[in-house]
């Protein structure tokens, strides 16, 4: 296991690279398409981080799309219908998703194993069907032509410009997504390093024992699930701004499954697993674009191959002392 200091330094280097080197070279190389790919990867890895947290308490969550969809709609409705600033709508979308997660989580978190997975899978479908049926979401027609994010100014100094006035809003969205991703993973890392992370793992290992040791497992589970859903909501909110639209089908069961795959592929034992998993899966898909109709075939074959040689995730390639790792 790498020491904390090493991990922090590593993360700082990663952050600097993502904020300077990557955008510099993609712009220099004129690969604007990769800016969007990276933006998408960052957003999806935020949502995946949420799924990863539910994995940390021993629950397989195939319902993250529901919260991403909720977040997307909350942000869209706040921005388009009530004229709230997009920037404020991001945390509000996350909080709204977290509140729903608390209400739903209290009963369903008592379920374990495949039962929990299935209920979450169904919840994705419930979210989609609700978006189709509710008047406030504009039903089947979706919410389209959403405005670009507005400016942030404090005391007359513009901190963030109005995206609508930008020559290249892609790079702006890139920074939004990457910064959110960096913050998210820093916080998740801190969370898992703290006592809370230890408690989560205790929960994942044996809920009865944790309970007998006086740990309020019901509360901890709901907290974990709410954090998870918060992240889903945030990712959904930003995506609705990127695409300037949100539809009942913006996040589907397939996405829920992909979030789960991202976590698995990166490695469930590693906080940064979701970033690695999302990056490999999405970027792989991007590269395979040239393979045209064999894209899906090659992608699936590589995925299976990876599972066979690295059943504990890509990050298990990094040598670790002893078994204990997180």
């Amino acid at each position, binding site marked *: 296991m790498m020491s904390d200091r090493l991990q922090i330094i590593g993360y700082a280097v990663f952050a600097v690279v993502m904020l300077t080197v990557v955008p510099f070279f993609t712009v220099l190389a004129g690969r604007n398409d990769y800016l969007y790919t990276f933006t998408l990867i960052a957003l999806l890895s935020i949502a995946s981080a949420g799924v990863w947290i539910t*994995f940390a308490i021993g629950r*397989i969550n195939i319902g993250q799309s529901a919260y991403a969809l909720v977040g997307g709609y909350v942000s869209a409705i706040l921005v388009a219908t009530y004229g709230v600033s997009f920037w404020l709508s991001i945390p509000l979308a996350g909080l709204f998703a977290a509140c729903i997660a608390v209400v*739903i989580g209290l*009963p*369903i978190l*008592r*379920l*374990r*194993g*495949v*039962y929990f*997975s*299935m*209920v979450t*899978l*169904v*919840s994705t*479908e*419930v979210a989609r*069907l*609700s978006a*189709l*049926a509710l008047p406030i979401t504009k039903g089947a027609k979706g919410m389209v032509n959403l405005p670009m994010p507005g400016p942030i100014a404090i005391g007359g100094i513009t901190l963030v410009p109005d995206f609508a006035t930008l020559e290249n809003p892609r790079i702006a969205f890139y920074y939004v997504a990457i910064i959110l991703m960096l913050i998210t993973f820093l916080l998740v890392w801190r969370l898992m390093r703290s006592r809370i992370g230890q408690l989560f793992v205790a929960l994942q290992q044996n809920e009865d024992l944790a309970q007998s040791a006086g740990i309020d497992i019901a509360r901890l589970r709901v907290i974990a699930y709410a954090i998870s859903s918060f992240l889903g909501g945030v990712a959904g909110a930003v995506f609705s701004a990127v695409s300037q639209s949100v539809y009942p089908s913006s996040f589907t*069961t*397939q996405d829920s*499954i992909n979030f*789960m*795959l991202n976590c*698995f*592929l990166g490695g*469930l*034992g590693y906080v940064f697993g979701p970033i690695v998993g999302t990056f490999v899966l999405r970027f792989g898909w991007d590269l395979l674009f040239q393979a045209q*109709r*064999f894209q*899906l*075939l090659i*992608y*699936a*074959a590589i*995925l*299976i191959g990876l*599972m*066979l040689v690295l*059943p*504990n995730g890509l990050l298990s390639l990094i040598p670790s002392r002893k078994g204990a790792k997180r």
Partner: protein
Amino acid sequence: MEQVLVNGLYLGAQYALIALGLTLIFALMNVLNFAHGQMYVLGGFVTYTVYGQWHLPFPVALVASAVSLALIGALLEKFLFRPVIRRSKRDESTMLLAAAVAFLFDAIILLVFGEKGRGVPKILNGVLNTGTIVIPYDRILVAALAVVFIAGFMAFMQFSKPGRAMRALAQDRTAAQLMGVNVNRYSNFGFALGALLAGLVGGLLVAIVGVNSGIGGAISTKAFLMVMIGGAGVVGGAIAGGLVLGMLEAVGLTVLHAYGDITYLVIFASLMIFLAIRPNGLMGKPWG
């Protein structure tokens, strides 16, 4: 209303058969087989090819579907699932593997069989019309066959040696091993049998609803629902779950038809509530 009940029973019979294979594999290996629906589709295309394209008799096509899928299942277990289960730290890894296999099958099916919806000539012509109930003869035959297959499967699990070994395995893997059950062999056999059931029902239903290359994922999800309603890993639960879901759909679609847009919302939401109240479904074994 009689018509609705008949629809529900018929739907329930085919759903139960779909759920059986899934629950078998789950019971034996704790693998939630995401590729179950794709196996169903493959089975459907085999029957489509043998019966619809080569014009061989329908039963021959069914056997072909069953055998080819059993073979695929056995190979999958031996070369993919077994090594991953052995080497992975967490049980859930098999879920990723199953999902990846589902992707692979989707890709192969699309490349080999194309993107169009396919159908075959009717296996029986004519419609039974009693005045209150209308049901085509081919549906009656398919439902009857489904019931026969289910009964056959249950008898096999109950009375044959492999069946008993697999039940012991499902009960307690370690204990079964101590009792001298060859765990590897019967896991393999069970996986093959689960895949066989998927292929069989896929082939059977081609006669009624045809087959479409992209439908696998949806079939898997539906099968998960049935298994959850009935209780995971229990044969009786799969059958009960299939019947319940079939009835729910048939009755729900009729009763709620004036509010069409929310029928499935109501079904799914009640499912969530039901599972929250009965965490192990109707008759499932508790998890962990």
